[in-house]
């Protein structure tokens, strides 16, 4: 049997593709904190060198400068690793960008433990949680290169701050080029009746694989891609809960404060339903090849499938 050919690309590549297009817009500015080669923001410099500014290794100031530029009508994309953008510069994002509701788009790469060998100091698993709790902030975690590009372009048109979470690791491409991304809208990627797996980021492909594993066990799983964690697509969450009676969330993020929490908030208030959260279980990561780490920390199709069975048993 011929093996299905899967194109693997990192979501940061989608950022690069979007920046190439955004270079045509005269009011778009891009900044980085000396990680432009890694975050791929340097792509913009190639096409609009006069509108690319390196802040050096000084993330806090970069966020403030971006805010100041935005008060003068610019749409500013700022990049660094997720750890430093949302961790080091958290308060600048909150007070200088989100509080005045400015047009700054924080596109941070190297999120999650799939950073790999650099280890726990660089594996940010708290960023969604940090960004989600800030008023005015939109939080997007694209599932593949196609969605990443679309999300970045959409972020450029959104009025106000946006956090786009990007990854380093090349991952399977889920969407084709005709895919249209909309902020706040999740999608049903596959229908099913027994359990809904709501996944985000690189866990979306794992969830699709989990569907096949579950099918062999006679379990029919509905697969939902939830790229926008805030504002979360409440109606899709509730509709899925009504349809399948239990839910599993899957994210490459701490189980505290991310997608799992966002879904739990909706369910507990609007339609109490058994829920199991798959994610990093309140622990730091470690060095190692990305795919090995993802397996070790339970961020795999197999672990999603296992937890789907647990969720079904709770019905």
């Amino acid at each position: 049997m011929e093996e299905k050919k899967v194109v693997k690309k990192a979501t940061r590549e989608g950022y690069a593709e979007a920046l190439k297009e955004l270079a045509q817009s005269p009011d778009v500015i891009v900044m980085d904190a000396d990680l432009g080669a890694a975050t791929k923001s340097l792509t913009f410099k190639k096409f609009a060198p006069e509108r690319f500014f390196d802040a050096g290794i000084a993330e806090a100031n970069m966020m403030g400068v971006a805010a100041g530029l935005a008060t003068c009508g610019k749409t500013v994309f700022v990049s660094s690793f997720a750890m430093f953008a949302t961790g080091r510069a958290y308060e600048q994002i909150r007070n200088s960008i989100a509080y005045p509701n400015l047009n700054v788009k924080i596109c941070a790469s190297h999120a999650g433990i799939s950073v790999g060998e650099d280890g726990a100091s660089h594996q940010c698993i708290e960023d969604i949680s940090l960004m989600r709790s800030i008023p005015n902030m939109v939080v997007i975690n694209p599932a593949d290169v196609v969605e990443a590009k679309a999300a970045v372009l959409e972020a450029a048109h959104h009025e106000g701050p946006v956090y786009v979470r990007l990854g380093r690791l090349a991952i399977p491409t889920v969407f084709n080029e005709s895919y249209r991304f909309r902020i706040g809208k999740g999608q049903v990627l596959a229908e099913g009746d027994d359990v809904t797996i709501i996944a985000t980021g690189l866990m979306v492909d794992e969830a699709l694989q989990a569907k096949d594993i579950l099918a062999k066990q006679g379990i029919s799983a509905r697969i939902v891609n939830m790229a926008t964690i805030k504002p979360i697509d409440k109606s899709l969450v509730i509709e899925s809960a009504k349809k399948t009676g239990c839910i599993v969330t899957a994210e490459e993020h701490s189980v505290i404060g991310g997608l799992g929490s966002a879904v739990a908030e909706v369910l507990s208030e609007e339609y109490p339903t058994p829920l199991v959260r798959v994610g990093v279980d309140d622990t730091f990561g470690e060095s190692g090849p990305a795919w090995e780490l993802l397996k070790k920390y339970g961020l795999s199709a197999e672990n999603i499938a296992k937890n789907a069975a647990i969720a079904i048993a709770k019905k």
Partner: protein
Amino acid sequence: MEKTVLSELEKMACQVRLSVIEGTFNAGCGHPGGSLSAADVLAYLYFNEMRVFPSNEKSENRDRFVLSKGHAAPALYGVLALKGFISQEEIKTLRKVGSTLQGHPNIKTPGVDMSTGSLGQGISAACGMALAGKLDKRDYRVYTLLGDGEIEEGEVWEAAMFASSKKLDNLVVIVDNNNLQIDGTVEEVNSPYPIDEKFQAFGFEVINIDGHDFEQMEQAFAKARTVKGKPTAIIMKTIKGKGVSFMEDVCGWHGKAPDAEQYITAIGELRLRLAELEA
């Protein structure tokens, strides 16, 4: 400086101080000390230096001001009221629920260019505004006022490095060196001295002045306009609580409102001073 201009500025500064006392007294809290030390430079900036347009407050060509030491908001509101961005009556609503006048500056308030209050952040935003001016080839200038305690924040020096690296000669960083912060004198707490040499080392043109002397301000800001290829830092020696005798150079007046008796004394002193200036 012409005598009429000088006298006008002195009156404006005195009225700003009255607003500081009026606002903090009615709020029952706030930061009078650092507002009073900054009252003179705010009066100078808004009445003798900056191009701002109360009737067209978002004009792209306006000069920008960022109050990086956001806790001096009562003084900023005082000057914005004198300029007509906000009404004099609003001063009494400072810090009250639903008021336009937040405890620290908010970009939604007419005449306020940036939300500030968390120390160290305003100077970065000012750098962004100056950079935008360069990009858009506009000739506006950007002014930001920092506290001397504030410059203990690391972000200030990240911003200083950036301003000089990007040659932001349309940026003027003003340091209100009143020598006091919440826990004591700035030397005792975590000395930022020598402030001038630090900014020099970061590539700034540095001017030291007396922050209560309008003629020195005039010379300093005029000189800043002639500086090319680098930003300017104006280090102003000031007195915290300036203009209200019992608040002058007293650490305790950083974040405390006057009580009814102190309010009457303070207002009395300032009104007397204003009457002298108007005589």
